[in-house]
């Protein structure tokens, strides 16, 4: 086999989460009360536009979660033994191989052909001068960068946009054709309906958003082949690649944290249902945890993990595993600091629900505790869980940046937006400024968080009946 699949802890959890989401969609499709609020979300132009953006992020994140170790070219092929590299790669790395491998010496600005730092270069005639050396890869195909670069970029951009446009038109046509077949209407009528926004789901918004994304993607792919479109970092790594690799980190923290939180938060349901000493214990635990400032609790826990890892290097043999365990642990500890809020909400709601007539009727019918919790309580608090999950996603993505800045975020070897900002901060005072790391982190993070925020705003409106009236 040319590769050996590797399933990291976070990979496993991500796919578990994906399976849960798919299962939820399948269930929700058959239940009207679950479908109705989602239908409202799906009718919102804003939400569906954001959904397209989010899906693009999630696709990249999922591709980056399929890990494997490539086989090494074996010195001794005859015995049939294959050695695998210690380096863990993902499917995304495979696709972005050129970006990963083309490493310069140090910083360089976006689209630069020359390095950021002067170097002493020995000319052919033996004289030594200090100058900005040409980059090894970025713009290497140009004879005279100063004269040719603008034209080259323009030509490549036009070509990329053309290709992107064609892909978009083809995929758009395919979508319209599918919709037309499903609705049993002629293609042209469907197209006209969609373009004029006469469909229940705002397909036109989704088409335009995905069009913009495809053009942008095509442009990035085309240009990043010849240039470092977002420059390079301190050790010459491509910033565009780093920003894309950071997507997975952000998504893992944003989603897995809540997944880890859920079992704890369900304690709130138990507290509200059983009351008495169960309630006292749960309340005590969450008041205690809540009383410690979040950052300090996270810092304390992560520092202790660091010490533990330093003293037990044998348990964490690969860098990828170390980084992954730290990422998972960060999710866990973030979950511990944030479950209290959800647990309190669930407890409050359960206290209300347990007095509802239908719960009383179930008791009167002789239903047991387990049946009541499973049939009556949990289905009726799930919307709170969902709203909290969606709302907390963007906050967690932002928290990652701050924690990495404090030094208790993800492992320094993990690519993340927080680490990018942190490394850029150290160069703030340099002239000229190294701004592209900040820009890259800002653009990628802002787009994700904004899309998630706008989407969650609609989800909350649809699921929270309190705010529906205005």
């Amino acid at each position, binding site marked *: 086999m040319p590769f050996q699949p590797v399933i990291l802890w976070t990979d496993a959890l991500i796919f578990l989460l994906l399976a849960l989401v798919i299962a939820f969609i399948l269930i929700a499709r058959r239940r009207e009360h679950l479908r109705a609020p989602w239908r409202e979300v799906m009718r919102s132009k804003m939400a569906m536009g954001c959904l397209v953006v989010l899906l693009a992020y999630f696709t990249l994140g999922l591709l980056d979660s399929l890990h494997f170790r490539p086989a090494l070219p074996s010195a001794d092929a005859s015995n049939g033994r294959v050695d695998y590299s210690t380096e863990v790669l993902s499917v995304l790395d495979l696709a972005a191989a050129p970006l990963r491998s083309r490493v310069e010496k140090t910083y360089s600005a976006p689209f630069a052909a020359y390095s950021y730092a002067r170097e002493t270069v020995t000319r052919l005639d033996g004289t030594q001068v200090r100058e900005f050396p040409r980059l090894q890869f970025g713009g290497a195909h140009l004879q005279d960068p100063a004269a040719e670069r603008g034209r080259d970029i323009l030509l490549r951009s036009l070509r990329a946009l053309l290709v992107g446009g064609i892909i978009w038109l083809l995929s758009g046509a395919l979508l319209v054709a599918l919709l037309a077949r499903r609705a049993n209407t002629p293609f042209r009528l469907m197209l006209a309906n969609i373009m004029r926004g006469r469909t229940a789901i705002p397909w036109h918004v989704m088409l335009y958003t995905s069009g913009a994304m495809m053009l942008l993607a095509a442009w990035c792919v085309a240009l990043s082949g010849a240039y470092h479109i977002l420059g390079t970092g301190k050790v010459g790594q491509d910033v565009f690649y780093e920003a894309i690799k950071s997507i997975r980190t952000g998504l893992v923290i944003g989603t897995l944290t809540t997944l880890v939180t859920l079992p704890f938060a369900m304690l709130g349901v138990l507290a509200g249902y059983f009351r008495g000493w169960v309630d006292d214990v749960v309340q005590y635990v969450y008041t205690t945890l809540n009383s410690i400032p979040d950052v300090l609790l996270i810092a304390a826990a992560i520092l202790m993990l660091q010490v533990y890892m330093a003293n037990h290097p044998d348990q964490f043999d690969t860098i990828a595993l170390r980084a992954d365990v730290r990422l998972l642990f960060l999710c866990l500890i973030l979950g511990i600091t944030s479950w209290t809020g959800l647990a309190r909400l669930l407890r409050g709601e359960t206290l209300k629900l347990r007095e509802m007539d239908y719960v009383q009727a179930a008791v009167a*019918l002789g239903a047991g505790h387990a049946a009541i919790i499973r049939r009556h309580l949990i*289905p009726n608090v799930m919307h709170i869980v969902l709203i909290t999950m969606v709302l907390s996603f963007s906050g967690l993505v932002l928290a990652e940046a701050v924690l990495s800045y404090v030094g208790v975020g993800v492992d320094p070897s993990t690519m993340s937006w927080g680490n990018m900002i942190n490394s850029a901060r150290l160069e703030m005072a340099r002239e000229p400024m190294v701004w592209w790391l900040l820009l890259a982190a800002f653009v990628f993070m802002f787009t994700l968080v904004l899309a998630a925020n706008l989407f969650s705003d609609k989800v909350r409106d649809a699921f929270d009946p309190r705010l529906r009236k205005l």
Partner: protein
Amino acid sequence: MKPLLSIKNLSTWFETSQGRLRAVDDISLDIAPGEVFALLGESGSGKSLTALSLMRLLPGTARSRGEIWLHDEDLLRLPEIRMREVRGGRVAMIFQEPMTSLNPVLSVGTQIGEALRAHRGLKGKHAERRAVALLDAVGIAEPQRRIHDYPHQFSGGMKQRVMIAIALAGEPELLIADEPTTALDVTIQAQILELLRTLQKERNMAILLITHDLGVVSQMADRVAVMYAGEVVELASRAQFLSAPRHPYSQKLFDSLPGRAQRGKSLAVIRGMVPPLTQTFSGCRFAPRCDLAWQTCRDVTPALLAAEGGGKVRCHLYDANYSVMRPAAPPARLSACNVQAGAAVGPAAPGMRAGADEVLLKVTGLKVHFPIRKGLFKRKVGEVRAVDGVSLALRAGRTLALVGESGSGKTTVGKSILRLLPITSGDVHYGAVDLDSLRGGALRAQRGALQIIFQDPHSSMNPRMMIADIVAEGMIAQGMGGDERARLARIDRLLEQVGLSPDVKYRYPHEFSGGQRQRVCIARALAVNPRIIICDEPTSALDVSVQAQILNLLKRLQDELGLAYLFITHNFAVVEYLAHDVAVMHQGRIVEHGGAEQVLSNPQHDYTRRLLSAVPKIAHHA
């Protein structure tokens, strides 16, 4: 006389995802100075929205059209700033929910003061003196002191008095009272109605009284307009309306009222339900539910025409042009004995079955006290004696009505018998089984015998379960009904038994009306073969016509299955109609107990007498 307020062709509508919802559709009314004009209708008839349209207080999504003339100003065309002078000034309004209608963080003096300042220009000392006078006028003791109190320091009835004081502050010519007593107990209701009557006479103020209660109409109104599905269907003087209501819908409202005269008979019901107001109507809106309708009613829209003997009515029966076309049968009132299809009631008097005298439930000295806990170790510092020594006995096939006002502990009795609330002391025996000593599994196994039906049809079913699952819940819990197939067959039978089609079992509760939901709840209770059903105000959240359906159903089930009901209610009409025995509760105790006939016609206890005299009597129309 020139009318004080004249509504001409008023329409109010909402744009919804199902289309335009015409809540008020082209109504015209005149209200004379100093008269009490009642707008009568069931929920969804558009009566409250009519009132809000007058005040221009509709929610933001609603639109109005038409003319509303107050003297010679059209309120709908006034600029907002002038409209503010009308609101609370010439026209004031009080609402149904006194509990939530006052601002909790402002003292009542401040809240009255605002109105005085806005409409009378009074400030400071003058305003305070006036506010005290107003509180005094609405019958609040020690107004000098109470003026600084906050709303939570007043009881429900007192809050409604404060609301009235606020309304009076601007010395209005017209007071709109939107169900002013619906949320209040019957004795408080009597006081508030009395107060309104007095104030109206003293100040020669007109009142637009919005209500669903025929009793209130009979006690208060000078003239009545009946609304149905957004339209006025009948307009009459009180005397005319009470003695001979003309529209078939009005007649049905009277006939579906339970009462002593109907004992042993089944009540008249209005079949079907109020049509959705998003549709465009052709013909009479009541035709699909009317027993007297004929083809013309479905084809031609009736107009509101002047009727013989004064007043107006919207019905072809009274329109000479059409009534002649009616095939056979005179336009007579339908007899009260009309029975809903499938709801046949045996002629035998209830309680005549074999073994009827068997005492099923015996409660002795039941006490339910809720501790008030305080402090670090939650030590008990006192207790609320919700139920304080109640004894009663319930026989098979009989109905025992437990009557009382809110806070009397009647619901607590019901729930503690079912062990939904812990019993402090006392004895509850079901047959030979000592219910209060059972624990865990033994208690659960015993639960099938006693069931409960709740008041609020909206919270009594889990919105996330299908009807089939809801009805099956008890069977699963009690291990009854055999396998999946047998259980489904039984669910079908149960649904039919309560008058629903078996097809509904794969639907969710939100698709049903209040009456239908209450039927499902009855089916859910019946599924475990109970002998006793505790009915906790099962009809008080329902319209009177739907109430009749449910009461008929309960009566039929009692006759068929020999069920015993512990019927918890505050409604004497229902008691008169349904109960064999009556127990009157007051402050956690039963103050009077006996046969229905005896307690109702010859009450011994002072409190019972007070309760009975507070019930608004309907001057009978027969």
